């Protein structure tokens, strides 16, 4: 085959092979010197070297120098995953003066040294993979990345603190931002909190100014009560469809005076109030909470008598001086164009009914932490008075940590915030009631600025910390002191014996988990999930806010549990990544698109229906298929289906892959 190339008058192939030690990460399990020596015997290989860290400046320089010195025109680097460093080595190749796509990577770390235990076998595998790469790289062609302009606007999905922070950061740089929130108001979970740990500053005091800023910002288009329905396009050029659900209120006219709420035919609330997590009732027409942004009411179509088809005197309509109520409103669809997307869809809290041992839903005085947040806050349903569902003021309170977390039966992960918020609630509950507080924990995790100090403060305030996971909560008394109480049975594992502790009130520190519809969101934005269902970042360390889809970034708890400071920091990082893209003004497209050779195309149209992006059309005049390189995303489905082999995918050409297969297997 090679000689043919020569005869065809093409350049002589001169390959440089570089195998990385990665410190001991590779070298400990693979005899890199032996691999380099073997490769040096393969045809066309001019240089074959091993080096301690190929990705280092010196390692890259080695490639640059050798290209120049030995007139190399193909580079193979055997190191870590190409998903990590392909770009690095292509850039080095380019610096050496040849087209970057003459470089190919072999993964001998993630797929080699890290997963094997037999040094000889791992070395053999590395040699086989090297031979495959040497085989394929000779067919590599010079390719150019195409540049596409970027729409200088961003979509932020989710209006919790993560989305708010990301939107404000982007908007402040002058970029247009669409902030889409599913609920009638922005604010998310943080708006429901009373105080924040460890500083105990009031959540509302630090959040509501930001919410107002979002509303007033000239660069932010805020759509609440809205959901993203679909997204098409590619990095820099996304077309997004947003459904704006009917509020039955004209947003332009409503001033949030609440006259309609007062005059609603329901004199008292009849629906569980979402904002107070069911601890109070609201009416069918309502504003989620007084500081809601936007300050607009909304009519719940499920609860409203009129919208349910019932006969209602519609006193709300009469009450509104500005005639803002419009029962004829329907959902509308907005189509927008953005260059980048920040997904900040947040989390939900674990449903403690999944752990029947804790008696949530069975015993009225068992609460979730979020319920207690509403109970201790002065703007909550009890105006800050802590009264149990059975009317008693608790004198003894048990706080159960890790509910649903660190548990193979429910959520395996640590939810990261529960230790700290449990301690915060312990402090607040004690402050409000003077009750004796028992914290039941497995491990106290307080690794943040001022967090350990907060733990110490709680200890000094007289809180009990009992190291043991609560095994049982029961109302069946065993001794007199347990009559009429909820008794917690637990091993005090530091003392080494079992205790029964009667309390008036139990607080379940429920963990954080992905939204029930996170899979749908993930599919829509074409991003991946980790096993537990949190959205997956491109790299856990080096690309923590990027995703595998270019132009889509992550912020907040949709990526994994985190506290407010971390969320805000991550939102800033996501905004910065998005800004980098928007500010550059163009994107470089990977050249791995497919191309039709009109000579061989029979015009059979097999490929047309296969293409998921409708990138292939048929030129009826010439009777051949044509691929639009702007629409092609380079999956290669058409290549595999073309009966006459007329379609080629750059970097994944048939001959490249056939050669890789043959050469990999040729190594015994």
């Amino acid at each position, binding site marked *: 085959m090679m000689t043919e190339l020569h005869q065809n008058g093409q350049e002589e192939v001169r390959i440089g092979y570089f195998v990385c030690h990665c410190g001991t990460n590779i070298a400990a399990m693979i005899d890199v010197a032996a691999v380099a020596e073997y490769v040096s015997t393969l045809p066309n290989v001019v240089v074959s070297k091993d080096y301690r860290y190929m990705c280092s400046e010196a390692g890259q320089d080695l490639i640059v120098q050798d290209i120049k010195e030995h007139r190399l025109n193909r580079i193979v680097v055997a190191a870590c995953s190409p998903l990590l460093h392909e770009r690095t080595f292509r850039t080095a190749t380019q610096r050496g003066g040849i087209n970057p796509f003459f470089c190919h990577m072999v993964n001998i770390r993630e797929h080699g040294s890290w997963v094997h235990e037999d040094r000889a076998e791992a070395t053999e595998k590395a040699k086989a993979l090297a031979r495959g790469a040497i085989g394929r790289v000779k067919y590599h062609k010079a390719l150019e990345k195409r540049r596409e302009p970027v729409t200088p606007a961003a979509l932020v999905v989710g209006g919790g603190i993560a989305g708010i922070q990301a939107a404000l950061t982007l908007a402040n740089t002058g970029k247009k931002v669409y902030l889409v929130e599913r609920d009638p108001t922005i604010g998310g979970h943080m708006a429901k909190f009373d105080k924040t740990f460890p500083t105990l500053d009031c959540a509302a005091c630090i959040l509501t100014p930001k919410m107002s800023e979002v509303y007033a910002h000239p660069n932010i288009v805020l759509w609440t009560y809205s959901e993203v329905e679909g997204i098409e396009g590619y990095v820099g050029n996304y077309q997004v469809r947003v459904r704006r659900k009917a509020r039955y209120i004209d947003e332009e006219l409503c001033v949030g005076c609440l006259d309609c709420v007062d005059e609603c035919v329901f004199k008292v609330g009849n629906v569980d109030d979402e904002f107070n997590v069911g601890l109070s009732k609201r009416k069918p027409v309502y504003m989620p909470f007084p500081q809601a942004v936007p300050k607009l009411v909304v009519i719940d179509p499920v609860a409203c008598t009129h919208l349910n088809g019932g006969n209602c005197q519609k006193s709300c309509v009469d009450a509104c001086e500005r005639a803002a109520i419009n029962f004829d409103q329907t959902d509308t669809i907005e189509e927008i164009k953005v260059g980048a997307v920040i997904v900040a869809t947040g989390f939900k809290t674990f449903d403690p009914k999944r752990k*029947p*041992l804790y008696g949530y839903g069975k015993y009225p005085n068992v609460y979730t932490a979020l319920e207690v947040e509403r109970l201790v806050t002065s703007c909550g349903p009890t105006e800050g008075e802590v009264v149990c569902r059975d009317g008693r003021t608790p004198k003894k309170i048990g706080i159960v940590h890790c509910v649903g977390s660190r548990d193979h039966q429910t959520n395996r992960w640590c939810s990261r915030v529960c230790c700290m918020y449990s301690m915060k609630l312990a402090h607040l509950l004690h402050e409000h009631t003077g009750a004796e507080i028992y914290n039941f924990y497995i491990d106290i995790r307080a690794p943040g600025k001022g967090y350990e100090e907060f733990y110490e403060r709680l200890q000094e305030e007289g809180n009990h910390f009992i190291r043991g996971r609560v095994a049982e909560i*029961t*109302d*069946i008394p*065993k001794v007199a002191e347990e009559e009429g109480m909820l008794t917690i049975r637990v091993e005090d594992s530091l003392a080494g014996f079992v205790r029964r502790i009667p309390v008036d009130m139990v607080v379940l520190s429920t963990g954080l988990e992905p939204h029930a519809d996170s899979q749908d969101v993930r599919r829509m934005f074409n991003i991946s999930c980790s096993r537990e269902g949190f959205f997956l970042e491109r790299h856990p360390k080096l690309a923590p806010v990027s995703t595998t889809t270019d132009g889509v970034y992550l912020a907040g708890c949709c990526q994994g549990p985190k506290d407010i400071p971390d969320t805000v920091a991550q939102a800033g990082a996501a905004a910065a990544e998005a800004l980098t893209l928007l500010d550059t003004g163009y994107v470089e497209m990977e050249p791995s698109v497919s191309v039709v050779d009109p000579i061989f195309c029979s015009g059979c149209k097999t490929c047309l229906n296969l293409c998921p992006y409708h990138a292939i059309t048929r030129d009826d005049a010439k009777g051949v298929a044509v691929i639009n390189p702007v629409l092609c995303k380079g999956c290669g489905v058409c290549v595999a289906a073309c009966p006459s082999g007329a379609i080629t995918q750059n970097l994944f050409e048939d001959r490249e892959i056939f050669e890789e297969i043959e050469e990999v297997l040729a190594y015994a």
Partner: protein
Amino acid sequence: MRYAYFPGCSLKSSGRAYEESFLAVCRALEIGMDELDDWNCCGATAYMSVDEANSHVLATRNLALAERVGLDVVVPCAGCYGVLAKSKEYFEKYSSVRNAVTTGLAAGGFAYEGRAQVRHPLDILSNDLPPRALRSKVKKPLKGLKVACYYGCRLIRPVSPFDDMHDPQTMDGLLKSVGARMVEYGLKGKCCGGSLTGTVPEAGLPMCYDLLKEAHRLEADVIATACPLCQFNLECYQDDIAKKHPDLKPMPVVYFTQLIGVAMGLDPKDLGLHRQIVPIEPLLREKGILGGEDAKPKAKEPAAAGGRS
């Protein structure tokens, strides 16, 4: 409906009333029960403590017998049920167990392939019987009888293929369908003390006491069980427990099959009601469920018979 039937050792002696009432109910419901030919002890928890590998051989031999006749095996004793189900599970899950069982059984001329399923009467009566089949046979609904359904451990743990592990309901459902009233027995899945009532009574008996006390607190008339050991512990040690807790009043403890049989109007003798140490018949008569006199032990009680087939 036809099943293989594994009685286990207890149902041939201290738990005879369970076998009698279960088989009587099955007959009345036209459910075929073929006692496994020459079955052996399941091994219980004791055998497992001495010889783990052979405990599975012991248990699976019975499953091999069921497979021979091509039937699933019904195991009323909760202890035996748990042991056989565990061996079946481990046979599937662990190749070491599979190899041991295959080798052992082959030496004895048996083979088990994992086909025969292990079922419990609560399971088949709740799930295999057509809906209303039981209800339609009720002649004397258990009106006014307040029952605490007690499931114990092995029916619902470590796995619970036919019920809710944390709040089992099958027994409640069956007894409700024959007219009884259930109390919210919060201890329905707690342990009765197992064999500790005999071996370490100071540790075992308090567990029975807690169960009995709670049933009294809820004003239950009777505790229904599905396990001969649970039934024995709760019923037979009441005198022992009362020595330490004189306030403890007698509480009848029966098998759920006995109550179903009563509701179906079966002869109390066939249901083994006369084998109660804490009698239940006066209570049933008081509620107007039973008429006539107490069933008297037969003039000549046959010795607790084993090997009957």
